[in-house]
């Protein structure tokens, strides 16, 4: 019997080596997180900054021993800011690179074509600052890491602020791009709901070079508020034209959705031209937004950003890149799993603590409560990037939880 026991023991050991040893080896391999990112093309400034934020999280989690005891590895491809590139890249990430988890690229345009694919394959996708890409697809494993929340909050806050200061008419300018057009449509709906007359409406193509004509038309319309949804080159062109032509004394608030006025190089080059603009933002270095871990993150990020030649301040996107990592980190640690359905169930049911504040997700994968900031540039001087590291240059008007001051109206007075 003893010999038989020995044989049984040896057989058991051999089986253990085969059966248990293999997964043990597999578990020592890295967890691969795949994504495309706009590293060239029009969205590259944001994409690179976002990626540095994600890389800081990767290094932090690896320094702590990894995710579920395994090192984290990022597999990143350049999507050239193009929607046509991303489906093939994500197919490669899944079928060739065999990544464990997926992060979406920065922005709406490259993310939108991925939604049908991830829904069809039943995959968890962590969004990265896209806007309403799940609106029609309705994928239940999509979690957008962005402050937007309910789609109408952002333009509604702007319009309500104008109404509070006596506005009865609105001019709407929007780029001919999905993100801007979605917002413009919502803004028009809110204006109708609040009996605000749209006195000027202009959609412009992305290749528009000169904005003086539009600014002249706004001035002629004598609008009380001007809601602008523009992309970085257009935001610069519009602000220059506003400085040169003027929008007239009727305008109480100007801005809303001007992309680019969150990026350091544009903030530095525009300087005092931004004064008075009431614009959206995601994160600002104000005391009301000093969440645990944020300071340590920015110290690490700002060192790397100089080397990587990306946004040296990084307030707009980079901390949200880090928060994408924190989302999967908290979910994986709590569930001890990398199964997409399990992680998605956790993300839907729990509050995620991150360096951009606590995050809760609604059924559509967007934040339950919007934390999109509406802030007014004030007292900004020219050619000084350091001023933006201090509080007080962008007064947070909304949401109330983060408020640091009241709006100054009319627009021309706020520019002085």
């Amino acid at each position, binding site marked *: 019997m003893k010999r038989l026991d020995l044989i049984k023991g040896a057989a058991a050991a051999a089986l253990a080596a085969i059966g248990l040893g293999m997964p043990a080896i597999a578990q020592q391999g890295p967890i691969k997180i795949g994504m495309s990112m706009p590293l060239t093309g029009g969205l590259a*400034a944001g994409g690179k900054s976002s990626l540095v934020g994600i890389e800081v999280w990767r290094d932090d989690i690896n320094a702590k021993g990894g995710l579920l005891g395994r090192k984290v590895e990022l597999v990143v491809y350049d999507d050239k800011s193009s929607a046509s590139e991303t489906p093939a890249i994500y197919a490669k990430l899944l079928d060739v690179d065999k990544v464990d988890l997926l992060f979406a690229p920065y922005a709406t345009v490259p993310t939108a074509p991925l939604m049908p694919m991830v829904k069809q394959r039943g995959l968890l996708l962590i969004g990265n600052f896209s806007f309403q890409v799940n609106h029609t697809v309705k994928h239940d494993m999509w979690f957008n890491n962005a402050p937007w929340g309910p789609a109408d909050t952002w333009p509604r806050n702007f319009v309500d602020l104008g109404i509070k200061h006596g506005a009865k008419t609105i001019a709407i300018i929007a780029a001919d791009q999905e993100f801007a057009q979605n917002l413009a449509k919502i803004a028009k709906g809110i204006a109708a709901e609040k009996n605000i007359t749209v006195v*000027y409406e*202009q959609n412009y*193509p992305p290749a528009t*070079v000169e904005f003086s004509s539009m600014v002249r038309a706004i001035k*002629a319309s004598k609008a009380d508020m001007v809601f602008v949804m523009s992309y970085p080159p257009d935001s610069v062109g519009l602000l220059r034209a506003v400085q*040169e032509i003027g929008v007239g004394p009727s305008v109480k608030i100007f801005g809303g959705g001007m992309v*680019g006025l969150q990026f350091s190089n544009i903030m530095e080059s525009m300087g005092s031209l931004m004064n008075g603009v009431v614009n959206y933002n995601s994160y600002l270095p104000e005391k009301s937004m000093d969440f645990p871990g944020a300071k340590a993150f920015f110290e690490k990020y700002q060192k790397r950003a100089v080397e990587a030649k990306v946004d040296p301040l990084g307030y707009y996107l980079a901390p949200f890149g880090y928060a994408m990592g924190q989302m999967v980190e908290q979910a994986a640690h709590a569930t001890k799993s990398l199964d997409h359905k399990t992680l998605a169930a956790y993300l839907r049911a729990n509050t995620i603590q991150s360096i951009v504040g606590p995050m809760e997700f609604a059924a559509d994968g967007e934040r339950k409560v919007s934390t999109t900031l509406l802030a007014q540039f004030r007292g900004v001087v020219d050619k000084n990037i350091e001023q933006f590291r201090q509080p007080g240059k962008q007064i947070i008007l909304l949401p109330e939880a983060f408020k640091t001051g009241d709006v100054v109206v009319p627009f021309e007075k706020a520019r002085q």
Partner: protein
Amino acid sequence: MFSFELLLDAVVLGVMLGCFYAAVSIGLSVSFGLLDVPHVAHPAFLVLGAYGAYALNQAGWDPIVAGIVLTPLFYVLGVVAYRVYFETFEKRGSDAGVRGLAFFFGVTFIVEVGIIMVFGVDQRTVQAGYIGKAIDIGDVRIPMRMIAAFGGALALTLALTAYFSLTFSGRAIRAVAQDEIALRLMGANPLKVKQLAFGIATAVVAVAGALLIIVGPVEPTTHRVYIGRTFCVVVLAGLGSMHGTLVAGIVLGVVESIVLTLYGASWAPAISFAMLLVVLAIRPQGMFGR
């Protein structure tokens, strides 16, 4: 909301904008219009010129002065680019045009990636006393940066027109465009003449690039915005016509500006290119082509 005041504003601004289009197209009018080189890298060179002006502006130079200072460097760049194109494509045969397209597309990507590696992907702007200010002429308020573009375009057109009609080498360039074999029979070397012309076409791009970054911000991919417009201006003008380039630029600028002001910005590019098709249907050689 039609008003004559808005229409007048649109026409004046359109003239300014059109001159700017002419300034960024005039180099292409030489390289493509006169030399028949499918120079699709022209807008990329333009952006390179803009970044050159940006770099010197960071050191305190006025962007227009920076553009002028960069012209010899761009002349050399043009000469080298043409020489490589000639050796690898043009002298090999009749399909040089098609293969040349591939060559210049390649050059475009190299320039774009080179700019990204040196300057990063962020947008760049320049500072100058006249940027962000405007002057009132009657009831019309004109941004001074657009006046800079207007002046730049006039200066470039006058300089090139004078050069091509008054100097020996300028007339040789026009001759090579008309009949290369005849020029060879006269004892001139067409290769050297073309090299000179391509060098000049690229040199003026340095100044045009400076105007580009004065008018608006640039980023490494800005060239994509200008590829259609620059070729449209050159073809509309009639290949190789310098004053035609100025007129075509102004026509395009005024039409775009009026359409944008009175009908909607989305229609502006479509109307411009529709106008090009109409002109070509009536005059296939362009407005000033022979």
